[in-house]
Structure formats: structure tokens, C-alpha cells
């Protein structure tokens, strides 16, 4: 395995981890505020569909991105309405959102485009193109650092950089602002926040709205960044891997970055070496593909330290009993 191969694998890992990272941060906001969100998959799928549709019709990836955020946000609000306002079961609401997105996208797709749930392929303006960072070409020949800068760091779509920038931003918001303190408090002990005169409902809605925006970015990246159009069920379980990454990351933004990078890297290695030959044993690709889930189970079993979810997670807040 030479240096160029390592760069290529890391480059692939960065592309693969970006939707996971965005969805993972979405889950982070939502669950830190005490609202479990297993509808990440559905929201990404809906965002992928709306962004691809609008990007195709208008020919603008940016309008597509806005539509993706709107589509995902609509589902977020349904989740909020069901589980915050009407105090329904958050898990059931999340499952319902996944089903709704899975059915609605195909139904609307057939109705609008008549391509069996696919959207037509996007042409140049409708896709996010790869951004070449300044001096990327000039520095290409510098040993070691040149390829790292020009191939690994440069040459991704703008959404990748946004996703990475969101990690420190999320850390800052959650741990250094008043809003973040309240958000975390509402996920641990909503009654105390309420006593302090802050609206639990409003905070939780703010959190799931942020989750909606982030899932919208993730879905738009899948449909208009990585591929050129929507294909039914194209999220292919990435929302659930993001949830696994969230547990793996113990609900912390920097850990989320590492967890999703690890999952992206595992997938990239499995893609590059379908049967990984380690000399003594050959690891089959099925094992590599299953590794993220195996790692999550190991974490949950407490081998790598306990993952403690926000204490009030999953429970609707009732002001008076």
C-alpha cells in the first residue's frame, strides 16, 4: 500500500463520512435536548428527494439545497408536533417519519417525473461541483504535504467544508453559549429549566429545527453532491449508521467527528479491498461492512467506556402532573 493509495482511501473516507457527520450532528442537537430522533434516515431521504427535484427543475444546486432543508424541516416539525406538543412516543414518531419519507418520495417521484421514483439526472448547474482550494495545483508536486493538500483537503464540494466547520461550531454552541447550556439542561432535567422560566417546548423545537437543517444538508449532499439525482431509498441506512455513530461518540461533537470518520474509513477500505488480505487471514467484505455495527455493540456493552444518553431523552415533558 503506497502513499497515493492511502491518500485516495482517506479522500474516499472524507466523502463517505460527510453525510454521516451531518446526520450525526443533527441527532446530537435533537437528542441533547431530550428528543430521540430515529427519523434521521427519513429526513435525509426526503431532503435528497426535494433537493434533487428542485435542483433539476431550477437548474440551481443552491435552490436545491434550500428545498432539501425545507423538506427535511417539514418532517422535523411533524416529529416535534407529535412528540413535543402532543407528547407522543418519540421512537414511534421517528419510525413513522422514516416510513412516510420512504413512501412519499417514491410516490411524488412517480407522479412528477414518471421515472419510477427516480429524478432525472442533474446536469452541471444542478450539482455542487468540487471546489479547488487556492494553490492546490501549484502545491501538487510538493512531497507528502502536496498530495495531502491538493487531493485530500482540496477538491471536495462546499458541503464537505460546511460539515467540518460545523463540528467546532456545534461544540461552541453547546458548551460555550447560554442557548447551549439550556439545550443540554433541557435534555438532562427539563423541570429545572422550566423552573428557571425558560420554555422547554421552545428549546426542544429549536433543537429539532437545527436537526432538520443538518439533515437537509446531509440529504442534499447525497443527491446533489455525491451523486446526480435521487434514487429511491438512496440513503441506504446511513441515518441509522449516524445514530450508531452518535452513541459511539457519546453525544459529543468532536467524538462525532472521529466516530463518523472511523465509519467512513471502514467503508472506504472495504470498497477498495473487497477482500482485505492481511497476510495470515483474508477478511471478507461482509465483515468490513458489518464493523460499524459491531463496534457500536461493543461500545454499548461497555467495553470502551459507558455511553450515557441524556437523562431526559425519550420522555415528553409534562409540566404538571
Amino acid at each position: 500500500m503506497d502513499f497515493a493509495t492511502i491518500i485516495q482511501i482517506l479522500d474516499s473516507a472524507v466523502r463517505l463520512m460527510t453525510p454521516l457527520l451531518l446526520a450525526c450532528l443533527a441527532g446530537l442537537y435533537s437528542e441533547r435536548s431530550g428528543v430521540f430522533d430515529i427519523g434521521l434516515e427519513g429526513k435525509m431521504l426526503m431532503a435528497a428527494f426535494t433537493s434533487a427535484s428542485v435542483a433539476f427543475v431550477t437548474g440551481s444546486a443552491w435552490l436545491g439545497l434550500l428545498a432539501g432543508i425545507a423538506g427535511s424541516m417539514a418532517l422535523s416539525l411533524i416529529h416535534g408536533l407529535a412528540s413535543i406538543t402532543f407528547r407522543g412516543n418519540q421512537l414511534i414518531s421517528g419510525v413513522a417519519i422514516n416510513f412516510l419519507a420512504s413512501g412519499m418520495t417514491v410516490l411524488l417521484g412517480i407522479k412528477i417525473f414518471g421515472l419510477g421514483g427516480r429524478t432525472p439526472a442533474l446536469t452541471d448547474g444542478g450539482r455542487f461541483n468540487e471546489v479547488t482550494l487556492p494553490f492546490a495545483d501549484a502545491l501538487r508536486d510538493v512531497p507528502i504535504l502536496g498530495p495531502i493538500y491538493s487531493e485530500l483537503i482540496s477538491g471536495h464540494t462546499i458541503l464537505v467544508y460546511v460539515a467540518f466547520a460545523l463540528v467546532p461550531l456545534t461544540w461552541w454552541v453547546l458548551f460555550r453559549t447560554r442557548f447551549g447550556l439550556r439545550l443540554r439542561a433541557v435534555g438532562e432535567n427539563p423541570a429545572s429549566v422550566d423552573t428557571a422560566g425558560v420554555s422547554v417546548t421552545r428549546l426542544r423545537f429549536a433543537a429539532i429545527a437545527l436537526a432538520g437543517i443538518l439533515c437537509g444538508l446531509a440529504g442534499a449532499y447525497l443527491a446533489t453532491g455525491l451523486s446526480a439525482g435521487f434514487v429511491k431509498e438512496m440513503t441506504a441506512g446511513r441515518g441509522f449508521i449516524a445514530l450508531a455513530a452518535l452513541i459511539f461518540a457519546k453525544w459529543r461533537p468532536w467524538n462525532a467527528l472521529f466516530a463518523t470518520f472511523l465509519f467512513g474509513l471502514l467503508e472506504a477500505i472495504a470498497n477498495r479491498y473487497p477482500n482485505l488480505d492481511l497476510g495470515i487471514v483474508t477478511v471478507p467484505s461482509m465483515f468490513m461492512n458489518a464493523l460499524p455495527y459491531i463496534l457500536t455493540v461493543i461500545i454499548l456493552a461497555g467495553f470502551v467506556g459507558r455511553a450515557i444518553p441524556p437523562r431526559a431523552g425519550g420522555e415528553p415533558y409534562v409540566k404538571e402532573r
Partner: protein
Amino acid sequence: MTLMKSLMAGCALTTLASGAAMADPALIYDLGGKFDKSFNEAAYAGATRWVEETGGSYKELEMQSEAQREQALRRLAETGANPIVMTGFAFGDVLNKIAPDYPDTRFAIIDMVVDQPNVQSVVFTEEEGSYLAGVMAGMASQTDIVGFIGGMDIPLIHKFECGYAQGFKATKPEGKVLINYTGTTPAAWNDPVKGGELAKAQISQGADVVYAAAGGTGIGVLQAVADAGKLGVGVDSNQNHLHPGSMLTSMVKRVDNAVYDAFVAGTDMVPGVKVMDLAAGGVDIAVDDANKDLVTPEMQAAIDEARAGIESGAIEVHDYMTDNTCPVQ
């Protein structure tokens, strides 16, 4: 209860009688959906051709989940549809179970062999069409490395892979075929993101022609290949129009012909195994306006030679599904 039973029996009788009088054929699409721009859409095209030529009508159903298969088949059989054509190997087990219950109905299944006296099993020699695609890939490749990306890891898709590898090796014996499968679950048919990533991985390893036999995943593969300025090979339907100039060819399976033939034969359809091979026009490589500039005279000569060899039996393309092994790697 007794009244109910006799009423139901009466209803069943009337529907059966009316069904026998009309005997509309029926077509069931598999999970990919009617407009998948590939396998199922080809079946739809065949049925449409039959409607245009005969003015007849037919019933159709799209599967939404695995659980519906038996119910859908029984419902169509009970409403008197005859013959009933279904696309996809996944119907095999269900059809094997219910075909004896409706001995007067003729069934046709595409891509699977079901040994029942009233079933016609239509199989394609995908290895032959893929062999020709492999020959073209061998002629077109500058790096002597080509790629294959399959959808779900099942023997049927290995059949495509193996034929392709044989054709490529016949042209470039020292060349290398990179092989990836998207997954082991049906989700592998609808993951264009992973398909694109696999294609990028193969291209970074030097592949300059990539063959995608992966349903909706293939859309992502062909997109990534076209973006990188390499050549893609489509599958099932003619996909050359997806990226004109970046598609070397498509390995087409004439599913439309199979459906059309079954509909034309109607209740006289002959049970047994029907092999749609290269000589019978069941499989072929697509050459049209979108890719004709890529087909050089030398390439055309190599294709013609391989085609003649396969048809005469001089070239024997190994079928992976006979022994689950491939002679070349």
C-alpha cells in the same frame, strides 16, 4: 356461514368464467419498479408493443414488498389472467409453490428456472452478452485494467461478471479486472452513492472502463465514470443515452422480447425452459448514436469475430451458475 361460502364460491365461479372468456395476460414487475430504466422497464416495453400491435389489454402489478408476491400471484390467477408473466428470480420459490394450484393457468418467469408443467422459464445467456462487452472493454482500455461493479452479491450477477472477465481476458490476457459488489441485501440495488464511490476507487486503481450490473446503484457508477472522463458499460436496457460519449455500450437483455413472445403465444405458451441467447437475439450489445464514435473499426471486427465464435460454438463462454466458479479471474 354456509350462505357466505356458497356466495363466495359463486363469485369465484363468475370471475373464473369471465376470466376464461377474456383471458387477459398479466405482467408482474419486481421490486425495482416499472420505470427502473432497466430490467422492469424493458418488460413494460414488451407489453406495450403487444398492446400496440394487437389492441389487447393486460393486467399489471408492481411489487411493493417481498410479502406481496404470493398474494399478487394468487389474485391474478384467480381473476383469470392467463398467461401470467413475472420478472425476476425472486418469484422462483413462490411460483414453484402456487403453480400446481392453478393447472389451467400458464405462467412465465424471467431469469429463473421453475420446473412445473405449466411454467415457462425464460433464461438469458447474460454471459454471452457480457463477453462481448468484455471484448469491447478490452479493445477500449488504455491501461489494461477494467472494472466490474455488481449490485447484490448473488450468483446471477456473478454470471455477468464472469462473462465480462472472459471476454476481456480473451482480448487482453495480461489485463486485470477489478471486481466490487455493492452489498449483500436488496438495498444494494439502490445505493448510487456507494456505487459512485466504488467506481472512484476502481478508477483510482487504474480502471478506465467500468461495467455496472447494479440496478439503481449503476446510475451512480455510470455518473462517477462519466465525471472522471472514463467509459461506462450499462446493463439490461440500453443505457447509452445516460451519458452520450462516455458510455462504451450497454449489455441489453431483451426482456421486452420475452414478454412480447409470451403475450403473443397467450394460453398456447409452451412450458419448459426457453433460452434467449445471443444467436436468438436474447442478449446483445447496444450500438447507437450515443456510442457509435467509440466503436472503432478494429473493435467492430473483434466484436464480429467473437459474436460469430459464440454463435458457432467455437467460443464457449462459461456460465458461472452451472458450477459457481469462474475460469478466469
